């Protein structure tokens, strides 16, 4: 044994492997410790370790890692704790054929698409990346595990197939998997089935529809001022198509930021209509647009310095208005309250020298004189104008230009831009893990806590190098062991909230809950709506979905797109428990009772339908006991399903 680990050491494998092998069995740790402890004082010094490893440099590194209190010696306890942490972190990596996790991914060796799903994905995929997501996933694991090892926090084990399919379906398609999808996946014995499922869901139209819902509500935020310009939702199907065709994120954002034309033919103008700040004037407000653009696409809350310099960061008031200057000559026609009453479709255009009435009745008149081309006047600060300036201080040459937004969009989406890729990556990461690498996700200031700076940079580089290929980025994340970890804590990682030792729990968003209830209850209407002919099925704005969304929606939901914490109040819970229309279990129960006769099978069917897993033997016993108390079996099964639907296990994505 000792020879083996010494050989391994000399073979020069990475440090964590050494510790792993060293700690391969817990009893052995003590034995080897005693061997290393030449003078038998209960501690290992650096010298003793060097003698053992016969490599001073490695011994030093290893020693530093274990000597947590830095007192120059390693005790048995320190050794054991360190070894355990490394073992847990490394255990997953060792399961892969790829023993040496690459930090830099290499181009994927040509591997023909195997399933129809993948083929169809490649066919519509505008930028099917040639980069290797598996290698990038390994890099993610490497970075995350490194921090876990440092903190001596062990990782939770790999999620079961049930956990995985439910989580992936919610994260990529916005709903739980159907019972047949779950059963097919659980039966599949292929070793590559998780990777295939990721590809399959990315090729599913519901993928684009789900991300379109997220981004639509981030972009179109109706308030009393802009709601009439946003009555129709043409943006969501547009976004869904973009995501499903896997357009580059840079292209989508450029279209949004430079959008002109009427909302029906140019849905991306919705961003500008959402910036309307007075229903009577119906004009996009450069300040409102600046706040939105910086938050959504740069991960910076510039609006914090709209009125004054930011108290905690380097941001100045002129940073806000420097960006706003790019948007100052964007105008709208037909976006007023009056026009909306006449059923006009609003139209956005950019033109210099067009002024708008910006004063409201009863308010102090804004006596600010109009600013020259390329500048914006700060309202109510007479004579104070700011030139169009990129965040960071560079002023573009606007001479000879007629439009300013394209200049800003080019700057923002360039591969060298310091904000764009990082903001996108951080937001997407939060989508899966409930928090950003930098948190809060839309406030990525230098002083915001960044738990894994190297990982963020790596993913941003990978995203930029893939030409902002979102499906590729998702493959990188979802194929990682970090993503595929169980959400169940171990006693040692229970209190870890930031190191990804386990998958964090996220409460379903209102839309996820709506579609998941529909899936579980077998609502045909919802199914038809989703599979609507030739259109992104989830686009309908009115109707039951909107009503449901309004009721269950958390206020903080839209900007972040993530709701990690419990967000329901008493009214929501009363509805979940007592509203017949959302817990009518009769269809599902009747179907199950028709196809199955044995109680065990019906119970298993209900568990698979609602929780995407098989019941434990104890749960079957419990359920059978419950069923036996009711003469009306259908009623009892209905109650069982009601209970399942009201568990937090259903309500949370875990």
């Amino acid at each position, binding site marked *: 044994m000792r020879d083996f680990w010494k050989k391994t050491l000399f073979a020069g494998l990475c440090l964590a492997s050494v510790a792993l092998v060293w700690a391969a069995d817990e009893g052995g740790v003590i034995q080897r410790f005693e061997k290393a402890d030449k003078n038998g004082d209960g501690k290992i010094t650096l010298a003793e370790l060097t003698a053992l490893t016969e490599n001073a440099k490695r011994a030093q590194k290893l020693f530093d890692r274990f000597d947590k209190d830095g007192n120059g010696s390693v005790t048995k306890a320190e050794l054991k704790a360190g070894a355990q942490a490394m073992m847990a972190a490394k255990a997953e990596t060792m399961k892969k054929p790829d023993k040496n996790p690459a930090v830099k991914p290499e181009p994927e060796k040509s591997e023909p698409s195997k399933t129809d799903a993948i083929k169809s994905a490649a066919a519509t995929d505008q930028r099917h990346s040639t980069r290797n997501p598996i290698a990038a996933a390994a890099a993610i694991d490497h970075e995350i595990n490194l921090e876990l090892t440092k903190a001596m926090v062990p990782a939770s084990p790999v999620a079961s197939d049930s956990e995985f399919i439910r989580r992936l379906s919610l994260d990529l398609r916005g709903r739980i998997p159907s019972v047949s999808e779950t059963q097919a996946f659980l039966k599949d014995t292929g070793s590559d089935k998780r990777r295939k499922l990721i590809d399959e869901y990315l090729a599913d139209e519901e993928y684009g529809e789900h991300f379109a819902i997220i981004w639509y509500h981030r972009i179109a935020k109706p308030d009393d001022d802009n709601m009439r310009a946003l009555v129709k939702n043409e943006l969501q199907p547009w976004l869904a198509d973009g995501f499903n065709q896997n357009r580059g994120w840079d292209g989508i954002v450029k279209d949004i930021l430079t959008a002109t034309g009427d909302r029906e033919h140019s849905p991306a103008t919705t961003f500008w209509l959402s910036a309307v700040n007075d229903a009577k004037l119906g004009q996009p407000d450069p300040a409102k647009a600046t706040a939105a653009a910086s938050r959504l696409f740069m991960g910076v809350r510039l609006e914090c310095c709209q009125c004054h310099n930011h108290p905690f960061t380097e941001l100045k008031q002129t940073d806000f208005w420097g960006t706003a200057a790019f948007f100052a000559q964007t105008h709208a026609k037909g976006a007023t309250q009056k026009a909306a009453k006449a059923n006009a479709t609003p139209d956005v255009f950019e033109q210099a020298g067009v002024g708008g009435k910006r004063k409201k009745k009863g308010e102090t008149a804004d006596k600010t004189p109009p600013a020259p081309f390329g500048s914006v006047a700060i309202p109510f600060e007479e004579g104070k104008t700011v030139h169009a300036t990129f965040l960071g201080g560079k002023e573009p040459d606007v001479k000879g230009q007629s439009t300013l937004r394209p200049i800003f969009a080019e700057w923002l989406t360039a591969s060298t831009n310091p904000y764009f890729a990082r903001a996108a990556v951080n937001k997407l990461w939060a989508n899966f893990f409930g928090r950003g690498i930098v948190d809060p996700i839309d406030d990525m200031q230098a002083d915001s806590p960044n738990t894994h700076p190297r990982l963020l940079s790596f993913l941003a580089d990978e995203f930029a190098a893939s030409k902002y290929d979102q499906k590729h980025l998702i493959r990188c994340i979802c194929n990682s062991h970090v993503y595929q970890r169980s959400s*169940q804590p171990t006693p040692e990682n229970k209190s870890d909230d930031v190191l990804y030792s386990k998958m964090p729990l996220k409460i379903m968003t209102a839309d996820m809950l709506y579609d998941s209830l529909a899936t579980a209850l077998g609502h045909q209407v919802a199914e038809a709506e989703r599979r609507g002919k030739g259109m992104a099925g989830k686009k309908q704005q009115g109707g039951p979905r909107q009503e449901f969304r309004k009721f269950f929606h958390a206020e903080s939901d839209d900007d972040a797109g993530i709701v990690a914490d419990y967000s329901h109040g008493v*009214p929501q819970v009363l*509805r979940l428990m007592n509203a017949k229309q959302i817990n009518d279990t009769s269809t599902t129960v009747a179907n199950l009772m028709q196809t199955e006769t044995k109680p065990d099978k019906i119970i298993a069917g209900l568990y698979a339908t609602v929780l995407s897993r098989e019941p434990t033997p104890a749960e079957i016993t419990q359920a059978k006991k419950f069923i036996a108390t009711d003469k009306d079996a259908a009623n009892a099964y209905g109650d069982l399903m009601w*209970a399942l639907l009201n*568990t937090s*296990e259903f309500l949370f994505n875990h």
Partner: protein
Amino acid sequence: MFSKFDNSLSRRDWLKLSSLGALSLPVSGWLNVLAARAAGPSQPKAKHKSCILLFMEGGPSHIDTFDPKPGNSSSEIKPISTAVPGMQISEHFPKLAMKMKDMALLRGMSTGEGSHGRARYYMHTGYRGGVGGVIHPSMGAVASNFLGRETDELPNFVSIGDRSYGAGYAGPLHAPVEVARAAAGIENLHVPDTMPAFDKRTRLLDQMEKAFVDRMQIPSLEAHRATYQRASALMHSPKSKAFDISNEPDALREAYGRNAFGEGCLLARRLVEQGVTFVEVQLGKWDTHTNNAKRVQALSEQVDPAMSTLLTDLKQRGMLDSTLVIWMGEFGRTPKVGKQGGRDHYPKAWTSVMAGGGLKLGQAVGRTDKEGGTVEEGKVTAVDFMATVCKALGIDYTKELHTPAGRPMRVVDKGEKPVAELF
């Protein structure tokens, strides 16, 4: 480390939740603990003050309600005398005129937001909306936060009407329970079948929930559990009858008025009586750009019986001193009537009303000019107003709360001057 807890469900909230006892309970019956408590002897009455906000959505004309201007040629109402010598209000408020000793008029409101949405936000929170990327808690959420009781089966904040002003960064625990129509009560309070059947399936849910919660050990799950407890307790509680106005005597229902607003005011009294901290009742359609005179009269005829009966009712039950009643819109309306026969938005000078709450009443604070166009004395800003409400309710408005991003934020913005004459 605990950034998760700082979000919508704060760490403090979580501690409060766990103080419900959910954590330390034996395997069975967590869902019904509060229910059992609710069925038992009722808890002592709240010692803190309560608040009923009558919100006039759309912005009522001050000139045609509580600040009549006979000298203004556009004025279409006659002023009448009130129980307080020298104070006059609209002729459409004969009943309120008799209650003037229980009311104070703030005739110097001057708030500077003339757009409905932003003005409503401003008047509900004391902060301008959309600036700084923060959603501020509304008055009701602030009251719930500082005065509410977590262990009561009734909610702390109820909003009656079309729309509600939410908890913002104060989090979902302080969000209002919404009642769309007072006469219909709270939605989904009753089971589709029977309570014994409900209890039976919640016992099963108990068992299932326990297993998952034990496995996961996440505060969010405790919040789920606590909310189900509260909902279940409310369903079982005799106090939930507070939501049912049908048991009130016919004469009283007539006095309040058999319309949505009158019923809302009656429901508000019932809720406050049972210990609810804050109730908002809305009355819309005050946006009288056209046909001002007739519309104001029709709306006034709803306000007059409802609000005067509310004050009488509260007084008779010994609750008026501990209940602050606020009447306000989001702004006033122009001193001139336009071509279309209406008045437009006017935040520069307008009137709000406070009643009860142990304040110095029977007075008008502040004065506008002859036309009702500018404030000559006793100017009250939105921030001053919010501070006044907080002070009246005994809330320390200089306290700081923390936004989800960790930014400290005063309950009421700096520069506040609560209306001294009221205290």
